[in-house]
């Protein structure tokens, strides 16, 4: 029991502390590729501290949804984060069918975010919500198919079992099913974390925003919670991708010297994936909004192929 608690606390700390760092690394790498110096890597932490200290402006038209959303989004994301194997294959929490719960906890956050975008009655918020829902309606099935492919391999939808199976066997990444599922999940990752070519996290143009448009009315601590939750979500999805498909260095448990090694591996893999994301963002322009469904249709097709290949090969 105490062991579980320590595991939970350790993973919670890792999630909260590491998430802004990943965002900071991505921003800095992007700036360097654009020949800019860019903000310091630790800037996201400073932004969070700054926002938590600030006052808030709440629109007169806002209902309880506006105030509830930051909490719902933050806690559902953190809860989802506790259910994935980060350092040890044994995830601290394993509730309601593992990976399905992760997907739907993230879905709950998104649902509230979209509601709050419309809640204030601002036209930008509504625009953002409608765009977010269009995209997630397509991203979610693709993600499910990809995850199921992995789950069938492991014989369970529990993430602990999936990761355990991945460690136990020889690495099967080059199997067609795994390749397809990886590609599908990578595309979903791009869409869900609001990165180019789907969304542009750096833009100031309200008319082109998706995620940023929904949180346009937030300020101060609420905004800090949402920004923090967004980077945690990014970390969770990235970890899910790397630990399902590249399980190197994943420790059997959180305890002992192995944990340090596990954290080292996690950081190294996250850094590699961040580099790939940055490269993709730099060489591509944002897609025309109506082309994004086509990208997600590709992800869906890849997911379907992955699932079919599991039975063929």
């Amino acid at each position, binding site marked *: 029991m105490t062991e579980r608690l320590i595991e939970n606390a350790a993973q919670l700390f890792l999630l909260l502390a590491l998430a802004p760092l990943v965002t900071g690394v991505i921003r800095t790498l*992007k700036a360097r590729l654009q020949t800019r110096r860019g903000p310091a890597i630790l800037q996201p932490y400073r932004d969070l501290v700054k926002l938590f200290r600030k006052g808030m402006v709440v629109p007169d038209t806002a209902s309880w949804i506006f105030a509830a959303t930051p909490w719902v989004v933050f806690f559902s994301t953190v809860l989802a984060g506790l259910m994935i194997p980060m350092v040890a294959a044994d995830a601290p929490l394993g509730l309601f069918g593992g990976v399905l719960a992760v997907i739907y906890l993230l879905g709950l956050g998104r649902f509230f975010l979209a509601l709050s975008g419309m809640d204030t009655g601002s036209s930008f918020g509504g625009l953002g919500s409608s765009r977010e829902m269009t995209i997630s309606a397509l991203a979610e099935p693709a993600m499910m198919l990809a995850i199921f492919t992995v789950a069938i391999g492991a014989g369970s939808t529990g993430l602990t079992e999936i990761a355990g199976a991945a460690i136990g066997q020889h690495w099967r990444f080059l199997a067609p099913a795994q390749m397809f599922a990886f590609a599908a999940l990578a595309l979903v990752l791009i869409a869900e974390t609001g990165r180019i*070519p789907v969304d542009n996290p750096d833009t*100031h143009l309200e008319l082109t925003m998706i995620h940023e448009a929904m949180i346009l009315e937030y300020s101060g601590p609420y905004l800090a919670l949402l920004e923090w939750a967004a980077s945690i979500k990014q970390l969770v999805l990235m970890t899910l991708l790397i630990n399902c498909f590249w399980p190197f260095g994943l420790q059997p448990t959180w305890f002992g010297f192995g944990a340090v090694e596990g954290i080292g591996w996690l950081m190294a893999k996250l850094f590699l994936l961040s580099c790939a994301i940055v490269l993709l963002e730099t060489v591509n*322009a*944002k897609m*025309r*909004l*109506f082309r994004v469904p086509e990208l997600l249709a590709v992800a869906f097709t890849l997911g379907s192929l992955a699932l079919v290949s599991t039975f063929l090969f």
Partner: protein
Amino acid sequence: MTSFLNNLREHFPEQVRSVEEHVPGQFTVLVNGPDATEIARHLLTEHQARLVTIFAEDRVKAEGVFYLYYLFDRLGDPSWLILKAPISPENPSFPSLAAEFPAVNWQEREIQDWFGLEAAGHPNPRRVALHDNWPDVHPLRKDFPLDTVLPPFEGERHIYRPAHGEGIFHIPVGPVHAGIIEPGHFNFTVAGEPILYLQLRMFYTHKATEKLFENLPIHRAVFLAESISGDSAFSHGTAFCQAIERAAGIEVPARAQFLRTILLELERIANHISDAGAIANDVGFAIANAHAGRVREILLGLCECLTGSRVLRGMVAIGGVRRDWQQAQVEAIESTLQIVQREFRDLVAILQSSNSTRERLERTGILRPQKASMLGVVGVAGRASGVDLDLRRDHPYEAYRHLPFRVPVYQAGDVRHRLLVRIDEVGESMQLIRAATAQLPDGPHRASAQPIPPGRCAIGAVEGWRGEIVHWVRTGEGNCLERCKVKDPSLNNWPAIVEAVEGNIVADFPVINKSFNLSYSGTDR
């Protein structure tokens, strides 16, 4: 032009009262007030003349009338033609041309707002230059003192065209925007993502610039002209100086003409390069913007080395330019251009090689040539939509008549072609600067100062990087101005954005807007 004018006089023997070449190459035809519209219509339909601008002047105190001026040019003729129509203060109205020639829509309404002359028969005679909540005042009349303090506005605000229907809603954007841009209100009516129509509201930065000119000594008015639109400081300044020089008969030395030409082209290159980056940035291709910013910085450094100002302020002066260049500065031009040319080639390669960027720009924000010429669109936006106009070629000024260059014109009219016009023009401008530097004559850089005689009128016209800039002046007593009309290219081009965005999706508006890159300050004045 002479035969054409004789023709006009034969055609309208009753209406044409006098024809005068008040400045070489600029003809004024005095007509009776109500006849101006008929003659203008004749010129526009029968002679393929182009109505460049229309403006008014208050001469009630001096001559007992208002004057209305219609400025025309004709393809292949470097002279200017002005129809001058007196309007009596007892019956302050003139027949509107806006229904047939939408290009004058806003300009006629400006006259309405500023002078209280009614554009009779205007299809949409609502306020434009002064907003709806203004009291009934006419600030450009001479009996309206500049230091008037108006009571707090209590009038009704502008009412936008309503939209009805399932899923149809308004997105009001601005006047205050995110990012470092000027104020303007955009009211989109959308059906989901696609834009049904866009309503624009400008003139949030109206500064009564034309009124301010009337109270300044001419040498100080040059600085005011430079600040009409910050990114076109040198072009606006030069257009103003040209108008004064022509009015006063000041001969600009050859060296000054070449120096001005080089600086005009440097301004064009710097702005075009920064626009190319900004267009890419608006589709999320930030790396091109980063490079464009770097290249522009090199050019601004050169501008500082040549004039002491990164944005070329304080250089142009009546009769020439304020400072001459030493040999080292002239050599700096060539060496910098070599770097810029190489870097710009790389930038173009980055832009052209990015398929995802190309996909966003192609067929986005199409302005059809027919619409463009109907709306009187000028400059870069016009040339991307088949409007083959360039004052440097059509009304050569400064050193342009000695220098070879090509005017790129495309028919497609989408964002990508507006970008291509800019890319082509950067290349041409570099050749122009090289040729001008090679031929740079010796001699004085500024004509000696002389008093400006009162009561003279003239036009100065410069093809700024954005499009044609026209200044019309009437000099007054004591080295001051009676009137200065400023026509910025943005004024004609804003309504074209309304046409270009129709049917596009809301998310594409920023890049369409950026591809026009119009000046709010220049529009509002």
